[in-house]
């Protein structure tokens, strides 16, 4: 039994889900009747989700399941183009401008309202962001605001044992200033030219006043400003039905009358239902089904590149892996394509760069040592004087299905480099992460990253900059190079995209030279839908634009 992150959380029920689905079948028929009258609009469809891990509050949702629901309920300042993954101003913001890339002026469009009829104002954003950042509110997405001036004042002071010793000194970030109803200013701690692209993420959604009166009730039945609204609370392990919001101010209102999110504990169950037409859309497929799904679903099968990367991180603090040539040798000993084919049914693209192909700045030929080259690998290892008699530890977190490919990596290391390996995959995340923080990796380890927003910098800064060293960030290789940091700063304050990309690529070149980790794969996501719907688009975040989906027939 594999318990991936997706289905690990509370397992669903299904007696009730079954009832829901029966009900769903009924409304489908009604929907199709209406559909003829209203031409292309209307109808109802259903979509698979896993159980969301948290209440449906934007500031506390950082996983895909709750994120999918919130995406239908909210529209952020900007939205992302499903094809190019670039930010487009089709959301609440009319413009986001800055002269120095540090102080940004956000101007909102008029006419946006929340589902309870109140206006979406500058205050709706500022209040929401302050709430999320304020540490006593314990919101998981707090760190998204870490680069806003005054963020530190909203954090409680803690000792080494994670005990609060002093409460935060402020409740509002000094960097957020409301100018008028439709304008606010955001001052960052340092220039960041990509900032407007970041604000489409879930953490940046606005909140109505009703939220602050009753955050708990809101978490069950959120009041957003998006194309769909929640008429009833979310039922854990069962799901929620959202209906079209008639007053939606965006350019692209929902095509369907309603969308029903059905929670499944297991993808296998949902897949069987998809085959039987009981659920209309799955945004991901069980591994065992991938071989047969393209034939079975034809053009209703969807494969999309994901904005992520899986790497083999090296403990640069460990004497054995301190030499970049050793790290390159290990990289060259891995046949990425063979692992993808045998273990992943070909659903991984061998990595050729630290930057995902879905964002601007990716280069197809950046990483030479990502190619299998056993001879070169062995001579590099000899030159470095690597002790082959000692086995290497391969670390990964338990219970998430990483055993298979990690063992394949180990087998190739033994085969190609004549170095024995030991799998260290018995630690759960709760233990694995603190160990990574504490420089506890005694060998190469699984290092994975899913982008927060589609910019090249998001694949570099959060993973390899000195500012991201644990516990502040996710730089688990403990790589630190001032030159690399400087180039990131240069890119962050560049006045146009070309200059920024050039600086990021220069930074990546340094990374390729120092090679703190070996890029392995980019994920391809598989989805499929029934004949009941069309225009199903899965974006690089693995999310489906529910508003765009059309019910047919």
């Amino acid at each position, binding site marked *: 039994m594999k318990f991936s992150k997706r289905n690990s959380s509370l397992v669903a029920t299904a007696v009730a889900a079954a009832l829901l689905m029966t009900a769903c079948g009924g409304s489908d028929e009604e929907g199709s009747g209406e559909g003829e009258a209203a031409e292309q609009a209307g109808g109802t469809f259903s979509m698979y989700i896993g159980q969301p891990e948290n209440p449906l509050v934007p500031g506390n949702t950082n996983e895909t399941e709750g994120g999918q629901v919130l995406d239908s309920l909210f529209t952020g300042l900007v939205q992302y183009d499903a094809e190019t993954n670039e930010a487009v101003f089709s959301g609440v913001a009319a413009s986001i401008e800055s002269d120095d890339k540090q102080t940004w002026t956000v101007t909102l469009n008029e006419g946006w309202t929340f589902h309870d009829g109140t206006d979406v104002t500058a205050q709706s954003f500022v209040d929401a962001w302050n709430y999320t950042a304020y540490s006593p509110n314990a919101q998981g997405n707090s760190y998204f605001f870490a680069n806003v001036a005054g963020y530190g004042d909203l954090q409680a002071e803690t000792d080494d044992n994670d005990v609060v010793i002093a409460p935060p000194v402020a409740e509002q970030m000094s960097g957020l200033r409301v100018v008028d109803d439709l304008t606010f200013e955001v001052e960052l701690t340092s220039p960041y030219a990509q900032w407007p692209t970041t604000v489409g993420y879930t953490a940046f959604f606005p909140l109505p006043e009703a939220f602050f009166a009753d955050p708990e009730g809101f978490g069950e039945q959120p009041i957003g400003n998006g194309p769909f609204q929640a008429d009833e609370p979310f039922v854990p392990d069962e799901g929620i039905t959202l209906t079209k919001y008639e007053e939606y101010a965006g350019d692209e209102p929902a095509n369907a009358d309603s969308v029903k999110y059905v929670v499944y504990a297991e993808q296998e169950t949902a897949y069987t239902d998809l085959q039987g037409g009981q659920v209309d859309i799955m945004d991901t497929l069980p*591994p065992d089904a991938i071989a047969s799904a393209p034939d079975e679903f034809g053009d209703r099968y969807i494969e999309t590149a994901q904005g992520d990367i899986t790497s083999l991180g090296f403990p640069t603090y460990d004497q054995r892996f301190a030499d970049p040539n050793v790290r390159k040798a290990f990289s060259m000993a891995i046949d990425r394509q063979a692992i993808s084919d045998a273990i992943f049914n070909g659903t991984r693209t061998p990595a050729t760069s630290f930057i995902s192909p879905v964002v601007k700045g990716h280069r197809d030929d950046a990483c030479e040592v990502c190619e299998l080259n056993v001879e070169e690998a062995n001579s590099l290892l000899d030159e470095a004087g690597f002790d082959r008699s000692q086995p290497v530890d391969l670390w990964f977190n338990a219970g998430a299905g990483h055993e298979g490919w990690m063992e394949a990596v180990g087998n190739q290391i033994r085969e190609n480099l004549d170095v024995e390996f030991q799998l260290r995959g018995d630690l759960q995340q709760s233990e694995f992460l603190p160990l990574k923080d504490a420089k506890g990796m005694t060998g190469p380890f699984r290092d994975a990253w899913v982008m927060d927003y589609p910019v090249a910098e998001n694949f570099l800064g959060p993973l390899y900059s000195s500012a991201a060293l644990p516990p502040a960030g996710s730089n688990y290789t403990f790589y630190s190079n001032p030159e690399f940091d400087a180039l990131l700063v240069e890119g962050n304050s560049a006045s146009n995209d070309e200059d920024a990309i050039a600086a990021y690529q220069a930074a990546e070149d340094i990374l390729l030279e120092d090679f703190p980790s070996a890029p392995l794969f980019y994920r391809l996501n598989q989805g499929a839908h029934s004949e009941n719907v069309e225009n199903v688009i899965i974006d690089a975040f693995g999310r489906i634009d529910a508003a765009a989906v059309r019910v047919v027939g």
Partner: protein
Amino acid sequence: MTDQQQADRRHDEVEAGTTTGLAAPSVDVTDARQNSLWSDAWRDLKRNRLFWIGAVLGVLFLLMATFPSVFARGADPRACNLANSKQKPSGEHWFGFDQQGCDYLANVVFGARNSLIIGALAVLVILVLGVIVGAVSGFFGGVIDSLLSRVTDIFYALPLVLGALVILRTGSLGRGVVAVAIALAAFGWMTAMRLVRSQVIAVKSSDYVAAARAMGASNGRILVRHILPNAVAPVLVYATITVGVLIAAEATLTFLGVGLQRPAISWGLQIDAGQSLLRTAPHLVFFPSIILTLTVMAFIMMGDALRDALDPRQRS
């Protein structure tokens, strides 16, 4: 034995998975009858076909665990090539290849060793724990008995797999063969304890124990010389069956992700890895399952036959 105890023991057997046969043999107490019990039992066993099937299978797997390369037809379980991934069985490779492209026959054969070691080791620990706690509890009675019996009740109320699951997750034991064996024993000793305890209580009040006491024998001597030998028969039956049960439990724990881990070779790991490929490569679950079942069956058949042979009431 009171009805309460009988009810308890029924539960014990179910809990431990030894849902076969009936109450343990009611053993008589004199030496002469002891001897006749064992020789009668052996005569009975020799005629029992199920016993022989179990014994032959048991020896076969013992040999497999000792000399795995012979059974693996010379293949190295660790020589893997992704190009062979998930290939079906063939004349050359009887069990096909696993996902990593390793010869599957070799892997399944090499899995026998860990399973048998864990089964035997865990039973050993169970016997030591069960006999000591049970004997002390039954012999001294009173407050000690109440206390130890309550402790036993507490462990008893927690299912074997659940307890072992949690204790292995704490990581205090590590994740090797010994750790799994100890974890299984820690939540599996209660039945042995109750068996020994009830035997001790039954024998304690007998005339010859009273006689030994009158002659000035010490508590320890009475316990070791006179009482414990009487508990051997039911404990032996229990131990034999339990080896099989524990081997299955090891596979279960490993399958749940807390037992042995790769690249250790174990049937539980093979079943775990194969189950997500059930649609495409069913042989990966099939082969380790068959061998695992046969191993468990070998011990249960032997234990079952032993039980019938040692139970006078079963004789016609």
